[in-house]
């Protein structure tokens, strides 16, 4: 469960303080699907980064699964990202040098505790790639695949550590509409099948319409009051 209370995030540009989030109180239940919408500069990327523990709030509290993120150190944050959150990026962010199998294995390699043996990691990565329909492309490198296939590999990578939350930042932004729709179908199916919390940042109202809830941001505040 994601719980934010009076969350404020301020950036410092030289001597000027730029507020990005100006007091967000938000609650997202386990298994919910939420779209975050808003114009650029509205703070949605910042909100996304804070939810994903890539960044810490300046003040206010953010409790993820009962643990206060604001109190955590760098190593703890890395562990939370590794175990609890799966990221899907607009640019896929796969390592071009490595095969997609190795790309998908990577989050498991970084597991600090209870890391399974290499063989098990390999088996699990192969399973994940089969689930996203890339069972026959295991040893291809990302640039040998289409955009849609790369995004599927990225989804497999996001899911390999069985996280509770999938954070997708414009996951269809770099894809044509047909492929984009396929990716959305896949994300929704995984969300429903595995009871995952799905949070998507998007500009696309048709994607937002597929979510159970839409959160709109304007100037660092929630537009429809606190959710």
């Amino acid at each position, binding site marked *: 469960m994601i719980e934010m209370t009076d969350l404020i995030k301020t950036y410092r540009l030289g001597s000027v303080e730029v507020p990005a989030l100006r007091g967000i109180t938000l609650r997202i239940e386990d298994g919910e699907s939420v779209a975050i919408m808003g114009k650029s500069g509205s703070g949605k990327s910042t909100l996304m*980064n804070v939810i*994903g523990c*890539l*960044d810490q709030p300046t003040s206010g509290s953010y409790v993820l699964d009962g643990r206060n993120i604001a109190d955590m150190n*760098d*190593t703890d944050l*890395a*562990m939370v*990202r*590794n*175990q609890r959150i799966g*990221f899907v*990026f607009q640019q896929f*962010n796969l*390592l071009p*040098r*490595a095969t997609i199998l190795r790309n998908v294995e*990577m*989050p498991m*390699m*970084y*597991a*600090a505790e209870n*890391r399974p043996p*290499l063989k098990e990691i390999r088996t699990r990565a192969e399973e994940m790639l089969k689930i996203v329909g890339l069972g026959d492309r295991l040893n291809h490198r990302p640039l040998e695949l289409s955009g849609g296939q790369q995004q599927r590999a990225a989804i497999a*990578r996001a899911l390999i*550590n069985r996280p509770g939350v999938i954070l997708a930042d414009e996951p269809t932004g770099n894809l044509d509409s047909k492929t984009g729709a396929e990716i959305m179908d896949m994300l929704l199916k995984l969300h429903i099948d595995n009871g995952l919390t799905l949070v998507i940042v998007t500009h696309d109202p048709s994607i937002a319409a597929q979510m159970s809830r839409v959160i709109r941001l304007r100037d660092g505040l929630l537009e429809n009051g606190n959710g």
Partner: protein
Amino acid sequence: MRLIISILEAFESLSANKLRSALTVLGVVIGVAAVISMLSIGKGAQAAITSQIESIGTNLIYVSPGSTRSNGVMSASGSAGTLTMDDAKSLESLPNVVAVAPEANGRAQLAYMGNNLNTRLVGVTHAYATVRGLSLTAGTFITESNQISHASVIVLGSSVAETLFGSTDAAVGKSVKVNGLPFRVIGVLASKGSTGFMNQDDQVFVPLSTAQTRLVGSSNFRGALVISQINVKAADTSAVDEVVNAITATIRARHNTIAGSDDFTVSSQQDSIDTATSVTDTLSLFLGGIAGISLAVGGIGIMNIMLTTVSERTREIGLRKAIGARRRDILTQFLIESTVLSLLGGVLGVAVGWAIASLMGQVQLSGTTITPQVSLDSVLMATLFSMAIGLFFGIYPASRAARLLPVEALRHE
């Protein structure tokens, strides 16, 4: 992240930029190869010089005249005619002394038919061959009766015989002119090579009595004939120090001198080895130090390339952090990359250095072949040192990578 996976990834990312990695490695290769070859040449030179000195015998002791002081003015060491035949005789009875060979030396002009040369002339007794370990290829050495009869006989060093007669065999029995006086050649020495200080084959020997009276002789103020040096052979190497002390005491008593104002010097072969060793050690250190500079330059090359790599891969670092890499995971990853680079350079550098060293072994330097010795510790040291350089010069770039903020790294284009 498991170590083996990190090493695999390091190779993967290094091979993504093959030329760049190869050039960086080359920098380290040159540095390590220079260190290895320089140290091995230094070691080789040391071994060559030491073995030459040892071939004369490690149980040799030299007594040479010291400097004299007249009215408080010190003259050059060795210039004084303070050693006499009686001094030499007095040493024969000392314990652990096997043989005593006094000598008087100077330079002489030798002529045979149309050939002539200037060489070192040494007046010696029969004991000299034993003491200095000389062996002959033809004829005999100076005998006791030659010494008693002041005979005009001469023994030639091998290169002298070759210059005058064309070969070492043809000389025996011939008559050569020494400073205009006729001398009969009775023997030719086997070639011994150079000590690095002087060519032992370029000298000739006559009876000491003959030398003193007719060739290089001089006498001291009492009218006794002086000698240039006394060579003493101790029973074995371990007795050398004891014999040196006994000789010093004996001659001090004869000359009525006290420690600090002696008019003679006693030195052993070990002293020469020690001197030579300290000279070649300094030489090795100097050569190795210069080579070490190029190794450090190689290290800076690694740092340069690692900094480039880190900034090129900022986005990758961001991604790795987003999926759970800790600071220390990123740090290790980049440190492994720089260490792989430097270690690769180290291993290749040892091979290249070895090759250079053995090539140098083919080259003759002023008649002496130095056989470079690649020692295990210089190989180990160069390898470990190159690894340390990789770590040292990798720390800054790697910690820069590890400190990147995930949000900013991910946004990096």
